[in-house]
């Protein structure tokens, strides 16, 4: 069961934003009198759980249903569809409404689009001839706080839409969401962007400000100092590599959805109830986490032993001890989780995979990498895993030589079926897996770290210095230099330059990832922000929290279904 994130320590008043979204939703419910059946699309259900307790909906006379292809089973005479404005949902709605017709049911239908009505959706409703039967509305939910320092735009398909379908709706959406933030927190004075979509979003943000300006008179200084927009496309290498922070691993292995993981009852544990400990360990390397947990446990054990052996403690000492005992269930939970994770990380295949990722990133031995992947295909390992390495190999080598490219593609089709042809075509279109046409500049990039030259002209030395600041988890794997920092060095440059003249005042930087961000990257930003002398707090905003699998999986399924 997902929980509403705690926002007490957020650098912005995100709670107010969330309350507003809550209120908007409840108002919609109130506007429809009496009992009603609220049908929401599955993704939105998760999103809403980050805003309010679902039990609250019941208080407003609503029974919840998930949208599906099945006919709607409910006694209610009023049906409220709360659906993200995606084309694919419209036919489902239409078929549910049509399903009622022959039964002679007198139902009232309401359709609230999230976050806004779109012509294309209405067009499909029109074509399905149900347009007239619906009362249409909007629920302007453009963003949801995921955590104190993470905002999500809930645009799951942003990356594939931009890269493959050419549909840049999400870019407009991101700009709109930031503009909404500006209405609450003032116009952000500095906007930096890297990448096609980001640049476009920055432009849109600008024109939105012109058309619908935020009135700055009744606001103080803007609370957000800078917004940095980054395309995921700029750095697709990072998400393709395995994450090794605790939270990252959880996401890779168990998949975090709306701030929670689903685990077997036998393993037990929802991760976010005991905020304190989780906050402490989530960004650490998993190996370190195990140690920390052990330490915690043993120290409590020692305390316990002390309590037991001596009778000399004061009452206050005892109180301290009891307090520490309170954290025991949380520790236990994480120990269970860690144990569960270790059952994955302990496997030789996991290490083999890390090894090969490392080899790919080093771009030294193409043959080994190639054969490794070839073998994976021959063994018919899950296609996601194969593609993840293949994409990594293709990205670091600027594509594969034609011979290898065609060979691997054929092997994939033979092993997994010809229905994956569109998938390969889409990956090629997106530049994720393609034929080599030019020499790779990957080595140059890893050495010079000039991935973001156009946004940031900081001297190279300072970047390198800052990279040295990057701690454990990444350094352990020696991939820190390659992956995470693509986004980091911007902020670092920024931080160095400006923290000097802004001593004592930490200003807020909104880092927007269009196309998704990984937990490991969020961890890196938190780490950076925690450095001494850093003049900035970071607030991360993203279309979705991703990892390699969650990037590839929708492309794989959609290639079979809709996209070409």
């Amino acid at each position: 069961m997902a929980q509403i994130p705690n926002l007490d320590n957020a650098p912005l008043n995100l709670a107010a934003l969330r309350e507003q979204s809550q209120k908007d939703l409840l108002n919609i419910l109130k506007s429809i009198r009496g009992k009603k059946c609220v049908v929401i699309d599955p993704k939105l259900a998760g999103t809403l759980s980050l805003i309010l307790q679902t039990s609250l909906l019941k208080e407003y006379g609503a029974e919840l249903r998930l949208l599906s292809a099945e006919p709607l089973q409910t006694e209610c005479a009023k049906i409220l569809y709360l659906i993200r404005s995606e084309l694919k949902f419209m036919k489902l709605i239409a078929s549910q409404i049509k399903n009622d017709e022959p039964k002679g049911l007198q139902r009232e239908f309401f359709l609230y689009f999230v976050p806004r009505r779109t012509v294309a959706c209405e067009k499909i409703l029109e074509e399905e001839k149900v347009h007239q039967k619906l009362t249409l509305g909007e629920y302007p939910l453009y963003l949801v706080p995921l955590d104190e320092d993470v905002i999500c735009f809930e645009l799951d398909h942003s990356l594939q839409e931009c890269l493959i379908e050419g549909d840049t709706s999400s870019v407009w959406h991101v700009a709109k969401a930031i503009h909404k933030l500006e209405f609450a927190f003032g116009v952000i004075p500095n906007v930096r962007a890297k990448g096609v979509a980001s640049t476009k979003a920055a432009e849109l943000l600008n024109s939105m400000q012109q058309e619908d300006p935020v009135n700055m008179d009744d606001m103080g200084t803007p609370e957000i100092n800078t917004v940095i927009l980054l395309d995921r496309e700029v750095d697709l290498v990072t998400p393709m590599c395995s994450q090794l922070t605790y939270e990252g691993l959880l996401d890779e292995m168990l998949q975090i959805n709306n701030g929670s993981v689903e685990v077997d009852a036998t393993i037990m544990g929802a991760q976010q109830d005991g905020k304190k400990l989780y906050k402490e360990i989530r960004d650490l390397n998993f190996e370190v986490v195990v140690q920390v947990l052990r330490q915690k446990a043993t120290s409590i054990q020692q305390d316990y032993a002390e309590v037991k052996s001596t009778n000399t403690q004061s009452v206050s000492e005892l109180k301290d001890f009891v307090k520490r005992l309170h954290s025991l269930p949380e520790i236990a939970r994480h120990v269970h989780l860690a144990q569960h994770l270790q059952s994955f990380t302990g496997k030789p295949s996991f290490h083999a995979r890390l090894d090969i990722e490392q080899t790919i990133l080093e771009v030294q031995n193409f043959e080994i990498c190639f054969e490794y992947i070839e073998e994976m295909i021959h063994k018919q390992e899950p296609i996601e895993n194969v593609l993840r390495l293949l994409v990594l190999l293709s990205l670091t080598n600027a594509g594969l030589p034609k011979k290898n490219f065609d060979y691997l593609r054929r092997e994939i089709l033979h092993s997994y079926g010809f229905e994956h042809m569109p998938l390969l075509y889409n990956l090629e279109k997106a530049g994720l897996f393609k034929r080599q046409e030019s020499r790779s500049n990957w080595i140059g990039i890893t050495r010079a770290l000039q991935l973001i030259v156009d946004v940031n002209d900081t001297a190279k030395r300072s970047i390198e210095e800052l990279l040295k600041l990057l701690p454990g988890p990444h350094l352990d794997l020696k991939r820190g230099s390659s992956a995470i920092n693509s986004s980091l060095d911007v902020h670092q440059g920024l931080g160095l330059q400006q923290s000097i003249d802004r001593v004592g005042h930490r200003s807020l930087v909104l880092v927007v990832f269009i196309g998704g961000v990984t937990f490991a990257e969020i961890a890196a930003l938190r780490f950076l922000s925690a450095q001494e002398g850093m003049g900035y707090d970071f607030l991360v905003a993203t279309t979705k929290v991703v990892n390699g699998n969650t990037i590839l999986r929708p492309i794989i399924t959609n290639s079979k279904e809709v996209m070409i």
Partner: protein
Amino acid sequence: MGYRVELVPIRLDPHVRGLTVPSRSPRQSTSFLTAHLARDAAAASPPAMSSSVSVAAEWDLLSDRFYRRITVYSPLPWSPPSAAAASSSSTSGGGGGGGGSGGVLGRLDLSTHIVAAAPFGGPIAAVRDDSKIVQLHSEPSRRRLLLYSSSGHPIASSPWPPQLPRLHSLAFSSSLNLVALLSDGSLLRFRLPDLKPNPSPTPVPLLPTSSGGVADAAFWGGGVAVLTEDNRVVVTTDIDAADPHPREFADPCVGQDEQVLCMAVVEPQFVMSGSPEVLLAVGDRVLAVDEDDVQTLGLELEIGPVQKMAVSPNGKLLAAFAHDGRLLVIPTDFSKIIFEYECDSALPPDQIAWCGLDSVLLYWSEALLMVGPNGDPVLYNYDEPIKLIPECDGVRILSNSNMEFLHRVPDSTTSIFGIGSMSPAALLYDARDHYDKQSAKAYDNYQLISSSLPEAIEACIDAAGHEFDISRQHALLRAATYGLAFCSQFPHERFQEMCKTLRVLNAVRDPQIGMPLTIQQYKLLTAPVLIGRLINANQHLLALRISEYLNLNPEVVIMHWACEKITASAAIPDTVLLEGLLDKLRLCKGISYAAVAAHADNSGRRKLAAMLIPLLLSIDEQDKALSKAIESGDTDLVYLVLFHIWQKVAVEKSAPLDFFGVINARPLARDLFMAYARHSKHEALKDFFLSTGRLQDAAFLLLKESRELERNPMASKGSPLHGPQVRLIEQAHRLFAETKEHVFESKASEEHAKLLRSQHELEVSTKQAIFVGSSVSDTIKTCIAMGNERAALKVKSEFKVPDKRWYWLKSCALATVGNWDALEKFSKERRPPGGYKPFVEACIDAGQKTEALKHMHGSRWQRKLQKQLHRSKIVMSYLVA
């Protein structure tokens, strides 16, 4: 020479002839037609003038200027047949001829009709004057309102509304509405060309009820001044408006015993105050009446009672015929008498008109006298009634048989054709003549005038512009080209411009159109107004041609045509009409469909209007709108525009190629369209891909369809060879093969089809439906697992499965079914290409650790395995475990 002189009137392309408005009453139109044909036969020979006759012989000298009468149209179709040959002396139209084919509508006799003619070669309207006793020639006694072009071609007629007060006078307003002033002082207005009462069939009163009716009236383009029976002046300056806002001017205080002898109006544009000034001749004085003042003029000039007045075209001079037979020309402020001429007649002329700015025409029955500033006047005799139609540069003379134009011979023409003229222009004209006759004199002439060549050329071009006769235009322009050949500094555009203008003029002067415009009138009228007049006369095709020729926006023409078409096509079903409309509307980019739709709506054609609404976005607007939407970055807006355009394509039933073209040029629009079409418009999407050359995308679409078939068991299972599915894949294969870049996909889909066939055969031979839909590898595994090694090998060779993979597949399959013997045998066949790893992993994955160990120990590849162990940690760890 380098110049081709092309003066043929703008031709009407036969295949665009559709641009006509059907007459609403078919019966009427046939009678038009018969009238036409009959008259056409009579008018077959054009009044071409032979150039051998000295041109100047036809000129008349007045003062020191030459004047000429040009016969523009002769004979007029309405003149009775007997009058066509020679004007008979009988004034009552046409004797017994009326019973013939001329018919009722084709006949017009000026003497028995109240006639109005619009300036600038406009149409002629007539109603029988029922104050006169008229002999009816087999025509209905009921009066009709008749409308003709200046060439006498009937345009329309409608019964004169019954039970109206007597008609006082008819006139055209400058926007070409026909205005009828009734004797009680009310106005009835008619729309052209169909003579529909506009805005309403009930007359609008101008005068207060007590005024006693109209005594006299004077029209100008924008209004009318009415003198009432009780000698008051009421003026409207807004004659076309639904409410003409009549104003009573200052009371001229004409005594009971006095009589207003005549009246004239100085048009508002010539008066400082901006409102018209009405001149009334009362007794021996002239009163200038305006809104709040009456001035008495001319007493000191001792003019005496004025019987007839006319204001000059520029509003500065007044021609007044005094009771003693004097014609006086006076400035309108009556400061002096500029000149006077004693006429023989004490009777006032029937008509008085200015011919240009420096002569005055006086018409008494049978005699037309042209008076100039000095010297003898010129007398023309007419044995039939005429009507003087003043134009800005001359006077048109309408008679029962002819339409003539009387004007001062332009200076350029005089310099060329004047008798004995030795002007450079005349010499140039002569030179061309010699040149054509291949006479060396041509060059002599050229040498004489070489210094003043530009002015000679200019004169020739200018003179050509003033000619009505096409052959003479031609001759003059040819003379100009001769000069141009020697004169590079002369602006050639001037010549081209003139040719263009003349083509237009010749086109509208054609008797079928009947607008005898002079070049000066044309310039004053301007081309857009001319086009407006043409479309008002339902000459849409010519209007369109001229618009195109002069690079003017044809929108007005097409728009008007569309509206007229809608009005006139009440009986045509909506869809047919829409198609007809769209056919033409498409001719014009950027046309506003909104106006057409609005008109359809007003004409009670709701449904048609609804069909037009999606077309509101014209192509141009579409383009603009689409660009704007894309610029906004808001994909919703882009969709909005896309759907508009798309709907338009659907309604127009036009090939969507234009649409595809428009969106294909814009990646965002294109991609959005594709995204949308994937959800609901497969066929359109396929069309789009094929028409824009995205064959690979079309192929992928086919693959998708094939998968949908696969998912639908009814469509695939049971049909032999999964026919439809395979067929689609093969189609896709062929599409891929058409582009060089998709060889891989082409081969892959070929293999896919092959696989499906093989799988089907396997299912038939094994009687197990477990193959179709699985991959090549899975098929091999299944075969091996079933113990059908031969089938597996066949698939292997058919799909050229590399040995490396083969080893993985076979060992995995054997381990899955626990066929360890076979696995061992397989391992012993020969050295595996990729090492023994497949065997080990297969065993381990199958969960048969001990089995694996046993086999490893007991097998001859154990040794080899040992070597590999230090490399393979995986195996090691399990072996140790």
